[in-house]
């Protein structure tokens, strides 16, 4: 069950009812969408403590500006067809910044869901194609005495 963190009382009540009903019969994934909750109130509820005791995994939805979402929907209307996220990322009809923002959204989903594969799939071995990840470049050790740009 996906439980969405939210300030909204209706959403909190709904999450609570769902967890009370299913209890340990279901696995949960806590979805944090920073665009949809502004306070830490939800994180202070006993529900969060209950989920934390069960080591419930978290998924964070990357923020996407309304401008990009509107541009995506406007392009769909213009083309008179719906565009899946994968396709929207590469649409030249969208401004480059919008494409990058949607590409980031997609990439963050791919990485996070792969990291949470044991919660999303019955068997992570089902994954046929893994996400290519960037390796962070190690910072060069600063050595002024042997800096190739400074040695005469």
């Amino acid at each position, binding site marked *: *069950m*996906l*439980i*969405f963190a*939210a300030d*909204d009382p*209706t*959403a909190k*009540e*709904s*999450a609570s*009812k*769902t967890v009370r*009903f*299913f*209890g340990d*019969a*279901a696995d949960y994934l806590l*979805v944090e*969408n920073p*665009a*949809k909750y502004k306070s830490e109130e939800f994180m202070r509820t006993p529900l969060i403590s209950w989920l934390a005791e069960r080591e419930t995994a978290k*998924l964070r*939805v990357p923020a996407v500006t309304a401008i990009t979402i509107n541009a995506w929907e406007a392009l769909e209307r213009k083309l008179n067809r*719906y*565009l*899946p*996220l*994968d396709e929207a990322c590469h649409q030249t009809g969208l401004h480059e910044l919008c494409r990058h923002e949607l590409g980031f*959204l*997609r990439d963050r*989903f*791919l990485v996070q*869901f*792969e990291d949470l594969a*044991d919660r*999303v*799939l*019955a*068997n992570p071995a*089902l*994954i*046929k*194609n*893994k*996400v290519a990840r960037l390796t962070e470049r190690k910072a060069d050790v600063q050595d002024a005495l042997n800096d190739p740009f400074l040695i005469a």
Partner: protein
Amino acid sequence: MTKEADLTAAKTSITRRFIACTQSTGRIGKSTVAEGLISWLRYAGVAFVAVDADSQHQTLSHRYPSDVESFDATKTLDDFARMIQALPDFPVILVDFPAQATNFLLSAAEHFRIARILRAFRDPADFANFRRGRSNCQRIRL
């Protein structure tokens, strides 16, 4: 058996995942997360079935017509039963429910003893019995 051993046994008995996007508020990100999950499942090459039960928006079924079936399972218990019975044996089944559907879903889950069935899935022996009994399950297209 220790709690850890119980959990390990439970995990090995799981053969597929039913993922429900449900919460009684709109515009909270349910369809966005479902869309992200579909993107990853397609990318990862994992077989899945997705049902767009949000008849008002139908974002998923419009954007992924070949992967997502549209079906409003939250009108009557009969609709809910039809959906559950029609779900094929895929490793992942994703259902995007509409907002305000929690009460209906929980009453349907109670009616069909879904929590009890899920608990049975936690025990390999009970799960095997459940599987054997399932052969009478009639499948109908949504």
